[in-house]
């Protein structure tokens, strides 16, 4: 690497920078990483993520990888379904969900960013793309979180997921007749649930100081 080829695809970067909000430097660094993961190829596949050793210990590994291939995260309106391989543009789009909001935003823009980040989280839970998080999906999430606790985890996961779902239903619906059925957590309910969660300040990665050349894969 040298100063000469630091920004190989400048015009392309301009477009990406506009769409995602990253700076040229950050895009360059992420591009390097993308090339590293895809073995200098143009596209990334699910298997390529398996080459990251640290990721293997992560309990929600599969959800994270799925999120990269989920069309709903590509900022195209009304796109659903998954793809098998992604290019650098999509990689960057998914990453842009974790960009910290700049300090000079007004409340409205902050709200937009917050909704975006919450939407990303919601999509990670809602695996069947039906717009709601059902009890089964929620259970799956809790099970994954407790996946390293063996059989004890499975039973308690059910209990925890049930209690959590009950809480969501109580907060969102208030009153339900005994024979009514709560279909699942919709995005509005999810929003209401995590109102105090301050997701816009917590769901961020520092993209500033990354230098991938010094790090192993």
């Amino acid at each position, binding site marked *: 690497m040298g100063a000469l080829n630091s920004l190989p695809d400048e015009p392309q970067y301009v477009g990406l920078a506009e769409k995602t909000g990253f700076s040229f430097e950050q895009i360059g660094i992420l591009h390097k990483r993308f090339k590293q993961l895809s073995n200098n190829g143009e596209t990334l596949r699910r298997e390529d993520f398996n080459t990251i050793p640290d990721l293997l210990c992560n309990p929600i590994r599969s959800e994270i990888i799925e999120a990269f291939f989920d069309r709903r995260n590509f900022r195209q309106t009304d796109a659903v379904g998954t793809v098998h391989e992604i290019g650098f543009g999509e990689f960057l789009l998914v*990453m842009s969900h974790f960009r910290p909001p700049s300090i000079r935003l007004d409340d409205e823009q902050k709200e937009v960013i917050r909704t975006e980040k919450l939407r990303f989280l919601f999509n990670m839970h809602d695996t069947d793309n039906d717009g709601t998080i059902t009890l089964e999906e929620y259970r799956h999430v809790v099970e994954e979180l*407790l996946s390293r*606790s063996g059989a*004890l985890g499975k039973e308690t996961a059910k209990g925890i997921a*049930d209690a959590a779902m009950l809480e969501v239903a109580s907060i969102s619906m208030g*009153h339900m007749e*005994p024979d009514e059925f*709560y279909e699942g957590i919709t995005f509005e309910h999810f929003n209401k649930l995590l109102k105090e969660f301050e997701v816009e300040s917590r769901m961020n990665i520092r993209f500033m100081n990354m230098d991938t050349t010094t790090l192993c894969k």
Partner: protein
Amino acid sequence: SSGVFSGLVLSYLWSRRFYIIYIYNKYWWSLHRTGFHLIPRLSSIVPESCLLITVGLLVGGLIKLAGEKVPPVLDSKLFFLCLLPPIILDAGYFLPIRPFMENLGTILMFAVVGTLWNAFFVGGLLYAVCQMQSAPSDLLNLELLPCLLFGSVVSAVDPVAVLAVFEEIHINELLHILVFGESLLNDAVTVVLYHLFDEYSSVGTVTVVDAVLGVLCFLVVAVGGVLVGAIYGILAAFTSRFTSHTRVIEPLFVFVYSYMAYLSAEMFHLSGIMALIACGAVMRPYVEANISHKSHTTIKYFLKMWSSVSETLIFIFLGVATVDGDHSWNWTFVTVTVILCLVARIIGVVGLTFIINKFRIVKLTTKDQFIIAYGGLRGAIAFSLGYLLDNDRYPMRRMFLTAIITVVFFTVFVQGMTIKPLVELLAVKKKQEAKRSINEEIHTQFLDHLLTGIEDICGHYGHHHWKDKLNRFNKKYIKKCLIAGERSREPQLIAFYHKMEMKQAIELVESGGGVKLPPSVPSTVSMQNIQPKKPPPVERALPQIPKGREDEIRKILRGNLQKTRQRLRSYNRHTLVADPFEDGWSDLLLKKSKMIELEKKITEMNNYLTVPAAPPDSPTITRARLSSGGRETDLKAAESPVLTPCPPPDPQTYQMKQMSDSVPTIQVDLASPQSPDSLSLLDELQRADQRRELRRRPPPDEEEGGLMMRPPQARGGDQGEEGGPSAKEQRLQRCLSDPGPSAEDDEDEPFLS
């Protein structure tokens, strides 16, 4: 009267301080207790620290009027060895680790760089001002190094004062931890600067080598203090692992180890405060996992009590020392000091924030900066350090002390009183009183893992990556060493869940029996609203269980039940018990297990016979359903045709069911790896039993009470039978209202051994 009594007792022990302690008690109890609280307006305007200082002033004045010699109460030895440690330990033990660690960089910047800046700015400019004085002033004699020493003493933000004032204004967590963390961590800087300038002023000159040595010294003091504290913390955690048979002295270990950490650090001239903080913070997660609930409560209340008493004493003695003190008032010196302190603080905070904001994700706004600057209160530590100065080496000592007291008074009174209205005026974000919910906990953990994963994908070894590595290391090695038994493997989510259930259970118990506790979120939503409706099961033939196998099954089930009881017992004695109900608790636990089984049977009975099956209830769901309110409606809905004619069941029964449903221990036991099998067997047998039960009411089994485990009769094809509704009703009535006399007999069993 009790105040007077305690005052007298104390006074016997401290004969020299007899008079003042007596008067303090008398005044403190009467003024503080009656006056302060009978005049609520006063307490909302004036922070308690101000009032205490005023009381001290009054007491000192009284003593002087009485002609007695005021004993040197704010003796530095007394202060640093007895009065300060409890406050710091309380702060360190209950330090909110997560926000502290997340903001550690910022806190360190303020504590180290900020204090250095303050010390040099104040000291240097003071010297300059002194040099500019005209000839007859004594100030001209003041050298640079004593000025710097004075600057370092007066510039340290005081944890006691900050705690006292910030406690009452309830600002948001971030600002609180920033100012408070700074006040704790700047002790290392203060200690080093103090000793350095003290030594150098005797030498007279400072070289570059000395400056470098100073920096090294600081690192040693700070890191050494933390290490000493951490070592003692780990020792305390390790000790607590083995205290399961001597629960009574568990709190003692916590206090003794912490105090020893403090003393050891002070002995080697390391930072005692940092040692104490490190000790408390390190030992807490492990100790809390090991000790009993009662010990935990004891520790909490003792710490709060001691720190409260210490704080009160410190402020009162400060007042007394002011009145009595040997003062030398110099208008120039004092006013310049006060002004310089303020200016230095403001410039320091603004400048540092500018730099810090480049590295923070959540930037500090101007409002935040103002509060941080305004919250830099000085207190008794500065005074005690000044008191320690040697009178021979520092002829200006009295002037220093006067100036320090003035600064302390100014910050505590002026800044302390006005910060609350300013917070309101500026609409600073307040502390969120929201309770942590299970959903938040789930998502916090989810987010942690998500961010770690994204960092790994980016190939960036950031904040989350290292945090995750530390957590895994902690889980794999450290927890195994320091936490006893099963709890070392309990994941945090489960621990949180159990804690919440325990809280709920205690709330229910405390709310008294029979009264339905309104759920935190009033709603009629219950478990069945979220359970997906399953189609009615196809009628299936009950499997025949051969006789030999059936004995085997009985043995397994009985064995499991005994294990359950044993585990219940161990949980009772060692971990989570609601206080006044300790002995009754285990009764409740057992009764609860019986009731759950009974409830299951009732549901199964209905499922089996006529009503389309509700999904088989796990104890959680039963509990959640029953605790979410709308209890009677739920039961009615599930078993509607049958229960309606039932007379209102015995409230005693329902009370037990209500309370016992929220107990977590049963849940864990039944969810043990063995249980899924045993439960399904139990189901089978129960269903078979219920069929038989319809035919005749079996005499209660002496051994097993409400759990009627009987071999099914060899009658196939008996499904779909409907006993007359009246028979069913009667059964149900009896089941619901009569836990079975044998159930009581059972309870004696585990407790006889």
